[in-house]
């Protein structure tokens, strides 16, 4: 268990020392809050849906968790190429523990990033309810664990960083745009409705939005159950794939 702890600590130290990484990853959420919030806000209001920032806030929080988490996982590819990973792979520690330590480390950073964006969103006029804040953090952590685990799984299989762009365009972007982060899930065309239901992030967004604003599409229990199951699945897959890494 000490191995998991030291791997977690390493990720945190790296994060806290890399200011540019922290600040850089806030650019996108700020842009989305600014452009979409002010751009689509009036239309949203006219359609009788209320303040768009209230709706958008949880979506952008989820987005920043998604991107930070996937990126933290995918970093294993760099680790493989630049040799840092070898040191952990020859250590007398079960591989699943290494995978878990890395995943929890990456997920913690993603949650921290999500909390920073939560504060940023309030500057733009997002007004969260805070009585369920603790449960919000649990949803954030589940989303973060899932996508870090997914990133590590992909990185374990991928040989080099050339596949990275494909993953960003064909996996991460669709997962974000088809999750209900930006638009309400009611009265969607059938096809979009089905796709969103298969998107793991949908349940994260819904849970985070439900606890922060009281607006939930599936209900908090459904969101929680789906996420817990997905996290369990991806961690087992990730641990298996990670154990098979040969350098």
């Amino acid at each position: 268990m000490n191995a998991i702890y030291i791997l977690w600590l390493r990720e945190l130290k790296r994060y806290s020392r890399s200011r540019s990484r922290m600040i850089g990853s806030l650019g996108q959420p700020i842009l989305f809050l600014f452009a979409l919030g002010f751009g689509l806000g009036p239309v949203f209001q006219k359609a009788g849906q209320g303040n768009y920032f209230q709706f958008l806030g949880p979506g952008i929080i989820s987005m920043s968790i998604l991107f930070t988490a996937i990126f933290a996982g995918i970093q294993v590819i760099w680790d493989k190429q630049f040799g840092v990973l070898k040191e952990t792979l020859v250590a007398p520690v079960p591989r699943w523990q290494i995978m878990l330590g890395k995943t929890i480390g990456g997920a913690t950073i993603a949650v921290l990033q999500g909390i920073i964006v939560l504060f940023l969103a309030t500057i733009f006029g997002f007004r969260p309810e805070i009585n369920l804040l603790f449960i919000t953090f649990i949803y954030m952590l589940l989303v973060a664990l899932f996508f870090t685990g997914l990133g590590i799984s992909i990185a374990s299989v991928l040989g080099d960083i050339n596949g990275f762009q494909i993953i960003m365009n064909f996996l991460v972007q669709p997962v974000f745009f088809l999750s209900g982060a930006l638009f309400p899930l009611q009265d969607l065309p059938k096809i979009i409705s089905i796709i969103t239901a298969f998107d793991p992030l949908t349940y994260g967004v819904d849970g985070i939005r439900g606890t922060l604003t009281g607006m939930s599409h599936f209900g908090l229990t459904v969101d929680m159950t789906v996420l817990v199951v997905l996290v369990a699945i991806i961690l087992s897959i990730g641990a298996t794939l990670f154990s098979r890494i040969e350098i």
Partner: protein
Amino acid sequence: MADSIIEVSHLTKRFGNFTAVNDVSFTVERGQIFAFLGPNGAGKSTTIKMLTTLLSPSSGEIKLNGFDALHDKDDVRKSFGIVFQDQSLDDELTAYENMEFHAVLYGISSEARKKGIKELLTLVELWDRKNSMVKTFSGGMKRRLEIARGLLHHPKIFFLDEPTQGLDPQTRNHMWQYIKNLSEKEGITIFFTTHYLEEAQEYAERIAIMDHGKIITEGNLEDLLKKTGEKTLEDAFLKLTGSDIREESAGKADQLRMHRQMRGR
């Protein structure tokens, strides 16, 4: 029968159609300094990866410190330390933190950790830089730190994969002093790969020459010279492999051979 700490028999590794290591067998005795000499691409690194459980063999057996490298992986992993060919430190952490990370992974208790880290960082003359980020270190300092790290859990075998590649001659000599010292004082078995003939000649007690995935010959320097009837390891190598280790292309090696024939050697 001498006490052997590494026993490899009929080791083979195939990548698709390409056979990187082809039916290799050898033993290394406890406390010995053993060199794997051969040109780039000979299969040295692939062999080391299999010995250190990073890569599973296509066939063959490996025993390290009495443990089976395929089945008792954790026991094997505790038995050796390694310095990889490519740098494998965490640049964003300090020297001390890199050592600490290693110690925790190897289950070293906090008391022993503090003592061991201080001892080893002092040995490699990095104690005064313990709180500096590794990214501020020179190539030689990084190598020294990697050596210190690899020794922290008191391994019985120390693998060094091209340990002095990219280091200047002065640093190289300095580094070898540490390693020789270790071998003498602690009785650690040293297994290193190199494509520098001088290094094998000067430091190794036993040399295996590898080329095209096979061990061509094995023995101490005198054996190799006697076998080939040559005066230097370089000439012996040339005779055995049919190519000069310094030249990657066969064309160059052939040129060299012709040149020598013309000079009547």
